[in-house]
């Protein structure tokens, strides 16, 4: 019977140890999030009918849980375009196209929001482009 008890204790110990779950401690350091735009260029001017291409490499030292792109009027914060997706990676190439339909001149902000730390923290990167009718 002693052997049974010993075996039970060993199995219980293994299960207990296997239940310890380590976690990436670099989570949540938003300074490690990088966004490198290939397109569009900050400050570039587009005209009505032009296709605004957003092509950016997003990277982080730990897991990226999601990324969102927004194009909004800088003056009013009205969102003209938005898309997001969930991710489970440490790098991602974001590619979107938006056709400029603006009838008035304005400055738009292109915002890329990156969710990290299991979606509890968010890094934001912003550039501006101009549109003219």
């Amino acid at each position: 019977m002693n052997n049974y008890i010993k075996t039970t204790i060993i199995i219980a110990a293994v299960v207990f140890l296997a239940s310890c779950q380590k976690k990436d401690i670099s989570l949540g350091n938003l300074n490690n999030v990088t966004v490198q735009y290939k397109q569009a260029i900050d400050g570039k001017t587009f005209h009505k009918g032009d296709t605004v291409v957003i092509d950016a490499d997003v990277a982080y030292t730990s897991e990226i849980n999601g990324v969102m792109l927004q194009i909004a009027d800088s003056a009013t914060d009205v969102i003209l375009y938005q898309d997001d997706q969930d991710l489970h990676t440490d790098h991602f190439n974001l590619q979107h196209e938006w056709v400029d339909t603006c009838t008035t001149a304005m400055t738009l902000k292109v915002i890329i929001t990156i969710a990290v730390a299991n979606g509890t923290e968010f890094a934001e990167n912003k550039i501006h482009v101009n549109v003219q009718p």
Partner: protein
Amino acid sequence: MKQLFYIIATTMALCQSAAACDLCGCAASSQYMGLLPQQYQHFIGLQYQYASFTANQPSIFDKDEIENADEYINTYQVWGRYSLSKKVQLFAFVPYHQNRGTDLETPIKVDGLGDITVLANMTLLKQEACTKKLKYTLLVGGGIKAPTGANKGITQLDEEGLPNVQAGTGAWDFITNANYTVSHGKSGLNVDASYTFTTTTKEHYKYGNHLNSSLLYFYQLQQKWVTLLPQVGIKYEYALHDYDNFDRKWLNDNSGGSLVFAAAGVQAFCNHIGARVLYSIPLAQNYAGGNVTTHSRLETSIYFLF
């Protein structure tokens, strides 16, 4: 009394991951072997399991936006037992999955061979001689689940948050289990526990280790040509968090949890034929941070004893 013990001399239950996922973990796939007859050494059977769940996952960027998934898991399984000796028994499970549902309004249709499991169990304690005393059996054992089921790795659906409604997990699992059955007269209790140690997939994903346990009360009703075993009890399941990338310790907080079921069913034995129906209703659950709701499960099986 004597007949009861012969019928229920060996009992075991175990759970195995077959179609786990990021949100549902092993909620979709648990397996209970039930009370097995001892007077025959071997058997082969066909089993059908049904499980379903609903996932309501808040969007990362807009908590008011709920991403919904409804999934229905149908598993048809060939399984059997081969007794190597009086004390050692081998079990094998060959599942075939039919998974249906919608995920973010995308239809899900997965058909295919699942992960095959092989187990060895040994009888460590057995008391069967006296008719007026308690009779009991203790089985312990373990085995492996091989990644024989189709697994396409990380798919688009995975990226959107539901990694696995695939037929296979893509990873090896190691299972250990223990089962204790005690009976007196026509009544008996079965206590069972199994623990699954998971490993990583090729993509470094790791499903959480999980514990499955159950406590069942059964009673023998002996008819002329058939033995019926009504049974009621509870089941408890617990799963650790998954890792999106185990090598880098990317713990997925939106996975794992616990479930408690009430279970009721009946088994019947008639000569070389056995059959079983078990229905489980969730009593309490906290899975994937409460974003996943597991519904009732049904399990039926029929087997030929020889």
